[in-house]
Structures are given as C-alpha cells and as structure tokens.
C-alpha cells in the first residue's frame, strides 16, 4: 500500500510544476494524452515521451518508484504487443513456427507502446506529485461531479482499512490451520471470507455515515476553494498550448507509420 500512502501525504515538493494550479495540471495532462492518442507517426510520440521523462525528473525524482510504475503498466500490455505482429495481416516480416509476423502489426505495436508510455509518463509528471486533497480539489475545480470526487476520496481512505480487515481475517483463518488448496473447502472458506468482508464493509459504511451525520453532514463535502490563477499558471498554459501545437505540427510533417 505504499502507493496509497504517498497519495495521502500532503505534498512537500517544491518543484516548478508543483506550484502550478492543480486544475491546469489535470487539464494539461488530459490535453496531452488525448492529442497523443490520436497521433499516427512515431516522431511526435517519441518527443512527448522524452519531454515527459524530463518533466518527471523535475517533478518527482523518485526514479525507482517511477520506473516500477511504468514497468507495471507495460507488463499489462506486453502480451498484446507480442501478439500484434502475428495477428495483423500485412507484408510478412518473418515466419515463426508457421505463423507470419507482419510489419504492419509491428508498427501498430510500436505505436501502442509509445502512446501508453507517453500517457503514463505525462500523468506521473503532471498529476503524480499531487496529494489526495489537492487532486480532489483540482477535480472539483474542473467540474468533475462532486459525487465522483467524494467517492474517490473515500476509496483512498478506506482501501487500506479493507485490506487490513482482509488480512486480519486471513490470519484468523490461518491460526485455525487453514491452508489454501484447490478444493471445495478452500473455495467455500474464501467465499465466506469475501462475504464477510462485504457485510462488514456495508456495516462500516453505515457507521461512517452516522458519524458524518453526527458532525452535521448534509451531503456536501467541503474541499475548500482553490487560490486564484497566478501569472505562472497562464505561462504554463501558454507553454503547453505551444508544445501541443508543435507536436501536432510534427505529426503533420512526418509520414504516418501505418
């Protein structure tokens, strides 16, 4: 749960980016990702990846963790990337065990890998350094529905509690000599465990609502308003627009990969 913990810590980072308004940072990340996803040549994507890496260096110099996050995401799409050359028809590159690998498939895989990495790096660079409260406020600031933001805040707060409840129950099971095997008894016991977690969470959610009502909650979370935009926010926005324009220019100038 290292991830959840860092998100909860009030950020103390003093990098250039952390002084930019969270609304601008979230919108900037969205803009860049949506632009990147629609590209079809590799040059602007490579440039975006490179820039995002440089900015990550500015915003969050915790390289081992960042690398782990990127690799975790790459792990998800690795199989798909390996399969693509074999599943997309086109000009044959080589034959492996009777299966033809096509150039078109390879290019598609390269593009998807670049886009996915660009997206996650942009997110790490621009949004990754925010703590939960700031992110909540930023999301509310760009008019994400309050219900979603509240849900998001609760998830962050209670996911660890749920995990600890699960671990406690697991330990209690193990203390009574339970060993997970692939048999009826094991599956039934896991079913009970999950069921118990659900029931407990439901009861807990009720008690939390009571506790909130006792503190005069009427269905509206107060995140507080964000400070007014400063000149450096506008400077950041202008730089971002120029950069996006440059990327689009590069996309138009370079031939599409597929």
């Amino acid at each position, binding site marked *: 749960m290292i991830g959840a913990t860092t998100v909860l810590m*009030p950020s103390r980072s003093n990098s250039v980016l952390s002084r930019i308004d969270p609304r601008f940072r979230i919108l900037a990340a969205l803009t860049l990702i949506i632009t990147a996803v629609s590209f079809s040549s590799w040059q602007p994507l490579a440039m975006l990846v490179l820039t995002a890496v440089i900015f990550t260096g500015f915003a969050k110099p915790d390289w081992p963790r960042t690398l782990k996050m990127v690799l975790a995401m790459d792990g998800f799409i690795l199989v798909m990337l390996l399969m693509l050359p074999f599943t997309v028809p086109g000009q044959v590159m080589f034959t492996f065990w009777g299966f033809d690998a096509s150039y078109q498939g390879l290019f598609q895989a390269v593009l998807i890998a670049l886009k996915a990495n660009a997206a996650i790096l942009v997110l790490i660079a621009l949004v990754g350094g925010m703590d939960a409260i700031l992110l909540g406020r930023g999301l509310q600031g760009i008019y994400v529905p309050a219900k979603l933001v509240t849900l998001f805040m609760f998830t962050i707060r209670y996911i*660890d509690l749920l995990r600890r409840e699960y671990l406690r129950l697991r330990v209690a099971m193990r203390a009574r000599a339970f060993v997970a095997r692939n048999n009826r008894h094991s599956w039934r016991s896991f079913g009970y465990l999950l069921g118990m977690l659900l029931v407990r969470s439901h009861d807990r959610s009720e008690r939390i609502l009571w*506790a909130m009502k006792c503190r005069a909650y009427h269905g509206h979370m107060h995140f507080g308003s964000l400070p007014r935009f400063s000149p450096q926010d506008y400077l950041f926005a202008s730089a971002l627009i120029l950069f996006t324009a440059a990327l689009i220019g590069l996309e138009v100038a370079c031939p599409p990969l597929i």
Partner: protein
Amino acid sequence: MSAADLITVKNLHFTFPTGRKVLNGVDLYLRSGERLALMGANGAGKSSLLHCLMGLVTAENGEIAILGSRCETESEFRAIRGRVGLLFQDSDDQLFCPTVLEDVMFGPLNLGQSRDDARKVALKTLSDLGLDGFENRITYQLSGGEKRLVALATVLSMSPEILLLDEPTNGLDADVEKRLIEILRSLPQAMLIISHDRQFLEQVATRSVRLQDGIISQA
C-alpha cells in the same frame, strides 16, 4: 423535567431490525455538569440508546428531549447534532478524511464556518488535546490511542454542549487512558459515558446507572 435537564428520555422502546428488543421503556435524564456512567452487560443496548439519542436509529416510541427541544423527526435531530457530540466505539468509523486536519475541520465546515476559521478551530482543538503537530498525519496510520484522541478532537471542534462517549477507553493503554481521564475531567461539558472499566468510571463519573433487561436502574 427540571430546567437544568440537558437530556430527558421517557419510556423509550427500541427493537433491532433482527427483532431483538433491547430498550423496553428506558427513563433517563442528564443534568448540566454531570458525568453520567451508563453500565450494563454486552449487548444490553447501551450503544443503541446513544444512537437513539442522536436520531441515527429510530425508536419505536417514547420521548426524547435534548437541550430543551423535543426530538422526533430527522430535521429535529439534525438541529441538535452539532450541539451534541458522539464519540464512536471504533475510531476508524469516525475518521474518514485522509489527514487529521481535514477530519477535525469537517465538523466546523458543516456548521458553516469559513475554511480559515475551521482551520483555526481545528488547530486549537488539537493543541488543547496535546496533539500539536498531528495536523498533517494520515488518519489510518495513527496508533489506536492517537486515533481515539483525534476522534475526540473531531467531536470537540464543534464545541458541543453534551458529549456521548461510547466506550472511550476501549483498547487504550494505561498512559493514554490516564491522559484521557485528565482531558475528560477538565472538560466543562455534561457527559454520558458507556464503559465497562470500573476504575475509569470511578475517576470520571459523578453518577452511574445500569441498563438491564431493557430498563434503567440505579447502580
């Protein structure tokens, strides 16, 4: 019912949704300046009584009057909730914001204070309880004792006139318990305290009653 009665309960009945009847005609009063201990066996309905008093569960029949006004409907209860503070048995139920400061500010913000005022009140409450420097701590990483004190801070930050404490010493070590006793003794609010801890009650309570077989008897 005398004028000094902060809480008056008359002939209160409550049955769990499962059908088990736990309150069977409870009569209770709490006077200003009192620290009333509510004792009783496990499952006797002590917590349910507190939940009835806050209007969190609905009593079948009976009368509840808090701070001079009769409470029956949700809106009537809502009006008094800021003035009565309930400390829950499990502090994890009460602390739901990521950081301590946000959590302590939650009540004052709901009462309509500005963010700056709420922040001031929160910091002052924390410092009164000896929790200076806790504001940026993460609620779920606190120890059991710290959680209980922070939960108390979230209640006190709304400056309630009555405190309802549901097993406040449950799971605390001797040091934190001693600290809690000192805090409770120094607070001006009238309190209704549920506890099984006789030593604790002897030091804190000014009067005690027992809930047994659904009714209140003098202890």
